[in-house]
């Protein structure tokens, strides 16, 4: 990233068009003038109008790298030829930290917490360089009662001095437990003529750690490479692609013998992620017939293409309808359908959808005789669902070993779940 990260680096927050002045700003290095940010909003709107908006804007010598969260823009400014992915990652980190502090990050939560927001900004970055960004560690010494910092007697945050930067010493729990969530989310993109353009699973293993001391953890998976290494046949093992780990995992050991060993941070964190290709789990066939000036007929067929023993819960199929449609009528073989005029969709809800089953919904809408002028896009059908106790990949946690020098017994709990990610089927 060259000589400095955010040359003048300041992620100021500002509210959209009404207020050209930033809501809050912090100038870390002083090489970008404070006034520069005032050009941002105008530039953004101008680009938006031209249809040439990009997450990177420039005014004179100043580059604005921005992201949007709720009604806020987070903007980093720099004059240097910086590393864009680092800047964006940092801005997202800021959002993450603020969300953990204030539950929601929006104009109001910033206004209510000015003091703590400034303190956090100072901890996250110094002189334009990211510093401590782990919210667990930050929470140890920046607390909601912010005056604590200034008392002078306050305790020295041990984590900031530890060799293991992500975990403090002296953590104590009465009951030592680890909760392991294996979550697989399915992304699907199907073209209007029914061919699958993208169908993949992004898996994550999330841990919730309530363990005392400095425990050493080892996670065993039915990893195909490991099974081959140990000569245990291929069946019941899964092949993982693109595996990524939390920084606590010792990568060298994984590379050597595929062991996943680590000292975990306290509380929630994502241990690893992987991805693989798959077949679509819920298949949708749809016919949307539009008879101009009179009516729209919609027929949607949904099919569960997963194991019969598993059940998808809370299935919601959102089917787009024209914005000027009226007088809806529905017929469903199972579940219920309702019309959401504000989103221009029909939502077909099926509480429980076992694998191998097929269901049907028909909808009928009236159309006004006077047609709307402007053209409408063709939004896709999107599907939400959740299949508990099931993973598409077949990944299994074979064991979780927990070793701590005090020798306590700890219980690992495992939960599997498959859910929809970006699950879209285009309509013609």
């Amino acid at each position, binding site marked *: *990233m*060259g*000589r*400095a*990260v955010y040359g003048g680096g300041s992620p100021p927050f500002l509210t959209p068009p009404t207020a050209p002045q930033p809501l809050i700003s912090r100038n870390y290095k*002083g090489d970008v003038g404070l006034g520069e940010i005032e050009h941002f909003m105008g530039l953004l709107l101008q680009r938006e109008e031209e*249809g040439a*908006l990009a*997450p*990177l804007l420039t005014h004179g010598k100043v580059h604005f*790298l921005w*992201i949007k969260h709720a009604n806020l823009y987070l903007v980093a400014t720099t004059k240097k*030829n*910086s*590393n*864009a*992915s*680092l800047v*964006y*990652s940092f*801005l*997202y980190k800021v959002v993450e930290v603020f969300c953990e502090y204030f539950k929601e990050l929006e104009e109001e939560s910033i206004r209510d917490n000015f003091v703590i927001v*400034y*303190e956090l900004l100072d901890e996250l970055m110094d*002189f334009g*360089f*990211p*510093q*401590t*960004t*782990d919210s667990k560690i930050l929470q140890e010494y920046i607390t909601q009662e912010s005056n604590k*910092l*200034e008392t*002078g007697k306050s305790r*020295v*945050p041990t984590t*900031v*001095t530890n*060799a293991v*930067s992500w975990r403090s010493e002296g953590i104590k729990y009465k009951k030592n437990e680890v909760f392991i969530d294996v979550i697989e989310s399915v992304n699907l*993109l199907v*073209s209007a003529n029914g061919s699958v*353009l*993208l169908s993949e699973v992004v898996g994550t293993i999330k841990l919730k750690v309530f363990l005392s001391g400095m425990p050493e953890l080892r996670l065993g998976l039915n990893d195909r490479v490991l099974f081959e290494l140990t000569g245990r046949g291929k069946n019941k093992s899964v092949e993982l692609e*693109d*595996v*990524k*780990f939390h*920084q606590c995992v010792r*990568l*060298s050991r994984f*590379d050597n013998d595929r062991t996943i060993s680590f000292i975990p941070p306290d509380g929630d964190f994502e241990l690893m992620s992987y991805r693989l290709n798959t077949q679509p789990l819920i298949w949708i066939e749809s016919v949307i017939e539009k008879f101009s000036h009179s009516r729209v007929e919609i027929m949607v067929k949904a099919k569960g293409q997963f194991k019969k023993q598993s059940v998808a819960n809370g299935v919601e199929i959102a089917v787009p309808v024209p914005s000027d449609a009226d007088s809806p009528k529905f017929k469903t073989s199972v579940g219920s359908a309702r019309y959401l005029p504000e989103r221009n969709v029909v939502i077909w809800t099926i509480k429980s959808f076992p694998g191998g089953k097929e269901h049907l919904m028909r909808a009928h809408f009236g159309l006004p005789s006077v047609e709307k002028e402007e*053209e409408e*896009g*063709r*939004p*896709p059908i999107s599907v939400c669902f959740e299949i508990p106790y099931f993973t598409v990949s077949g990944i299994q946690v074979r064991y979780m070993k927990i070793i701590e020098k005090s020798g306590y017994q700890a219980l690992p709990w495992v939960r599997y779940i498959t859910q929809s990610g*970006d699950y*879209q089927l*285009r309509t013609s």
Partner: protein
Amino acid sequence: MPYLGGEEALRELRRALANPHVQADRLRYRAAVLRVIRMPGIQEYLQQPLLSGLRDKASYVRRAAVLGCAKMLKLQGDCEVDGALVNELYSLLRDRDPIVVVNCLRALEEILKKEGGVVINKPIAHHLLNRMADLDQWGKSEVLTFLLRYRPRSEEELFDILNLLDGYLKSSSPSVVMAATKLFLVLAKEYPHVQADVLVRVKGPLLSACTSESRELCFTALCHVRQILGSLPGHFSSHYKKFFCSYSEPHYIKCQKMEVLCELVNDENVQQVLEELKGYCTDVSVELAQGAIFAIGNIARTYTEQCVGLLTELLGLQQEHITSAVVQAFRDLVWLCPQCTDAVCRALPGCEDAIQDSEGKQALIWLLGAHGEKVPNAPYVLEDFVENVKSEMFQAVKMELLTALVRLFLSRPAECQDMLGRLLHYCIEEEMDMAVRDRGLFYYRLLQSGVEVVKRVLCSPKSDPSLGLLEDQTERPVNTWASEFNTLAPVYGRERWALITAHQPVEPSYACSPCTDSRNRDTESLISEGNKEVLKVHPDTGSLTLIPDVYLTAEQFEKTWLSLDMSCHLSLPWCGTVHPDTIQTALHVVHIQTIAMSKAGVQPWKAYLSAQDDTGCLFLTELLLEAADPEMQVSVKQSEAKPEALQAFISVLRTVMGAAAGLGS
């Protein structure tokens, strides 16, 4: 105690900092260093606490103190860099705390800016490599960037380093992946197979960044994918489906994806890619639809027949913006691929009714003028334009119409004569726009001098297939962009970046690694052999002869400057103000070209100069005058190591600058 402003608070703070036991209160100390350091009048009280902060037991104090040193020196500006402090910071690179280590690098980089930043020698490089595992994602990305500066001594060492860093190519943080990729590409610049291998290995991480939940990271990754495709066109071909747009994606991502699709298209996927792009052509967003049409137009350079068929089909929709974009795509296409002219001409009739915008009209009129002999109703379409010329709003359309009609007149005189007369009459007698009127007069007089002359002037080639080859010179070597990988340059795109940086003075950024060693550099001269007239510049210079009227562009200069090591550094006495014009003239006399020069009175004042001698050796010079400094800093880089010539060049420079100083004051 953030942001206190009052006098009283300041006094209180001074008292606190003056207290020798300030260290006892670490958090307060830290707060002071972090936050109030920029307040005027506080710095002198901070110096001592800062230095003792470097040796504090608590790492969070050391972290703040290390960066505090850089802040302090930045604030003091002109002050001499304290060698002891620099040494102390270098030794802190061995600190236990990973953030202290990275902060030291950052601070040293800032403090030693003028000397080219922090030095990464072998022990430091190896130490950093060993500490990599402890760093957080920010630290990792930054250390990987600092390591760009290190040049391994042997092949063995190089490969050891690459092996050590291999894991970071698959890191979960996209910024680490990008930084590691760049380091690999730069370090392995002499091993194309290693580079190719690295690009294969980062395919997965890059693809997953392209489908990242964060739109901005996704956008950045897509821009870098395009960069890679520029060198390895087939690289992502089998993953083309990953670049299909999803409904809810923002416009900028969809555009990038379409560009990527254009670049990775090959025999196997062309059908599917075109099918997908066709879907976008009817999108409600006009920009997106037109973008998709232009994308198909691009692909048509290779897969002409299929694409022309598809584009012709789109004309059937009779949509204004679609027809306009298709006709523009056609115009650009026939110029590059003359073989499709007939098909295009067959598709044209009927388009005129649907086109309303200036760009589309111009394209249609151009096609009718240039290829009118193949479009039966061309004269009638142009006649409609002539009829309505009074109400035509766009100047460019009228100009295009004039040219097209004169051209068509040459191939179909009988049908065009009458209306050409009417058009010329209108343009000369009634038109209010002077440019159009002049163009009309020009054609009128040209026609007066006879058809043969008109033909000579207007019947230029109607296509230029070689241009397509030039433009499609895609397979640029990896090394041409390796040094700008993971910077803003690929994110802006080549052209925009050049535009943004064009008006800025050449910044000798030491962050980029020197790409070529001066000794193995291609001996090819950067300056074209133009004027052979040479002039002895100075009686004392002996062997040195500088060639006059050589011309180096700012980009060439910057590239060469970055690739060379410093040959010589000296200070010239200087007092008073600078008169850039005087200096420039004086330098011109001795055949030293001024590449860029600050205006008078700018602080610090800088200038970049270049000269070449008769053997082809380049001398690149930076002049730097800090505010109120009695000496001007001169840095010279030489493209070939010739100490004698260098001495001669410096003596010339000394003389000229001496003279300019004398004239100026």
